[in-house]
């Protein structure tokens, strides 16, 4: 010690020390509430789910034995899981595609000069405020196999009734209808906002050039909608992969049908967790779903980026502004 180069020892007073701590640590303290909350309500559950997914877990006794990747392997070996995956994507496609086409159409109608604008715009959003379970109950009366509204009309017309609760395709159509009923209005409003941001001068110029309504729609409106559409598609994808309420209330048991015709991934997850009390498997399932959503999210990002670049080359100012609108 004594041989060390004599460096003058700086003695700091206590208040100086506090001042230094203040400088060093208080910024972290100021931003800490978010990170503390995020750790508690965000990271911890995700981590704990991962922990449970490697265990054979007993919920009541709050204990488990380590089983490694057994739960993941079990899930991937279940035919139900693959059926559920197929159903989820099928319902997603049957609901999203017509829904967006309809939403674009309705938004285009509402974008025109019509009477009682606000009334119509609020009107399309009305189904969105109804609870999904209530929607399910209403549509159960519509889609009952023997005493349902739709099949009643079909039989009266002398047509064959549709096997809503038997055939996978038709059950998906019925569930997709419930989804569309709720979400079309919501997407309409977002697309309408994007349409309103389009510079009206373009339409005037097009009219002067002699373009018809349809030509204006395809040449001006649709290209400007592209970034908004991407946003709507991404949110619809995430929502579609997590579809739960509608298939849950589609029949009296809520477990996806006798032949798993409308079993979706989240429904299967719920049944394993809260029907069979097997939280190890349910946690593994949750992680698999998380990875699937992550993968599709990345795919979306990739597609979005290439589309946006493409747009940049065309120098579409309108599109960019709309994108900003949406980002807000």
């Amino acid at each position: 010690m004594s041989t060390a180069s004599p460096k003058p020892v700086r003695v700091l007073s206590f208040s100086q020390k506090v001042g230094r701590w203040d400088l060093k640590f208080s910024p972290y303290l100021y931003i800490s509430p978010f990170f503390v909350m995020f750790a508690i309500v965000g990271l911890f559950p995700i981590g704990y789910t991962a922990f449970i997914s490697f265990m054979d877990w007993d919920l009541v006794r709050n204990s488990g034995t380590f089983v490694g990747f057994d739960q993941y392997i079990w899930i991937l070996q279940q035919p139900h899981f693959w059926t559920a995956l197929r159903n989820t994507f099928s319902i997603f496609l049957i609901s999203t595609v017509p829904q967006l086409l309809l939403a674009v159409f309705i938004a285009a109608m509402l974008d025109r000069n019509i009477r009682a604008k606000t009334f119509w715009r609020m009107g399309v959003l009305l189904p969105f405020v109804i609870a999904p379970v209530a929607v399910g109950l209403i549509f159960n009366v519509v889609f009952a196999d023997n005493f349902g509204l739709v099949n009643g009309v079909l039989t009266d017309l002398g047509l064959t009734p549709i096997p809503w609760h038997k055939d996978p395709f038709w059950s998906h159509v019925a569930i997709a209808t419930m989804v569309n009923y709720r979400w079309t209005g919501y997407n309409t409003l977002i697309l309408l906002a994007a349409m309103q941001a389009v510079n009206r001068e373009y339409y005037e110029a097009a009219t002067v050039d002699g373009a018809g309504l349809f030509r204006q729609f395809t040449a001006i409106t649709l290209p400007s909608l592209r970034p908004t559409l991407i946003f709507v598609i991404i949110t619809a994808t995430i929502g579609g992969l997590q579809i739960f309420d509608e298939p849950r209330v589609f029949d009296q048991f809520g477990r996806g049908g006798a032949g798993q015709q409308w079993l979706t991934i989240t429904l299967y997850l719920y049944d394993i967790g809260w029907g069979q009390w097997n939280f190890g498997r349910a946690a593994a399932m949750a992680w698999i779903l998380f990875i699937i959503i992550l993968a599709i999210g990345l795919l979306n990002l990739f597609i979005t980026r290439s589309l946006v670049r493409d747009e940049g080359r065309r120098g579409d100012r309108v599109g960019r502004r709309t994108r900003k609108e949406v980002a807000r």
Partner: protein
Amino acid sequence: MRTSRRTIAAALAGVATIALVTTGCATGGGESSGGTTTLTLATFNDFGYTDELLAEFTAETGIEVVHNKAATSNDARANYFQKLGKSGLADVEAVEIDWFTEAMQYADLLAPVPDDLKGRWLDWKEASATDADGNLIAYGTDIGPQGICYRGDLFAAAGLPTDRTEVAALFDGDWDNFFTIGADYTAKTGKPFIDSANSVLQGIVNQLEFAYEEPDGAIIATENPDIEAAYKAVVEKAVPIAAYAGQWSEDWFASMASGEFAAMLCPGWMLGVISGNAPDITGWDIADAFPGGGGNWGGSYLTVPANGANVEAAQKLADWLTSPETQLKAFTNAGTFPSQVEALASSELAAATNEYFNNAPTGEILTSRAEAITVATFKGPKYFQFHDALQNAVTRVFDGLEDETTSWNTWVTEVSAF
């Protein structure tokens, strides 16, 4: 910094939220206040425990009872297993027979029934609530002895007898006899005979001693010849005469209201379901018979979680609620048929009639049906999963999705993974 009103409001809101979250986790019930003990009682649907009935208990013992009712048995089940062994359960918790076996796995977390109460309930009702160490862990409330409900008017139209003693004689026999009568009816009228194929499966399985599991934990589901025979019988003989695959669907209720089918397997509590959902249909009656002997469907228990604050007082309440006298009052209130030996012998029960069912002496008939029950099916912890999957197999055949053999094989593959 200038503190605006909005900042204060936001801060207050934040504090309030945190307070709500933390207090939301606090345990409820079991607090002693002002010298009197307050107990909590949790049930679901309708056990017939009215406020007046609970007031009688308070008058006798000075213990206040707070009654929490869950809407459905499923809600009660979720709540039960999320809190069992931790905290937050009521002092006395009702458990339905469907998930009772799951609760039996945690028998050590429940306070046993005092020995002097043994013998109060029917043997089989007590046997299914006794754990491996011989402790009775639950207080039986009601049972579901099954008779056959039938439509007198539809039976007459098909040339079948209508008097309930004659109908009882007609159905006195095994399941094949029942299927033959059903097939004749369907052939004559072109209409479905019974409401659903899966209720028949339920009826047959509830007469087996072992269904899918054995008490030592061995899984016999796919090898049990009785189960395969039950499946075969239901698929080949019950499906053609049934209106629906399963019960409780939108269509099933609508069909009941419009009077589409002629007969149903009827536990006591089903009488209320029929009269409640088909008020405009006349002609329902109940016969003192059941194919293949007696059969029980449903019924509940009361349990006392061992880590509650007032276990002793809670045991007193459970004892009082399941006493023959109280159960008879509950039966009058809600039609929950008693499981207590003494209550079954009472004249009050014997005198009960049901106006909707052509003034049938339902008390007498159901008592006779309860006496005919000899077997309590052993239901292991995975009973619900196995049975549900087998019901799905029957439904697949009913819906024409798969044929008999394919559907059975699908079931075997499915349950092998459990």
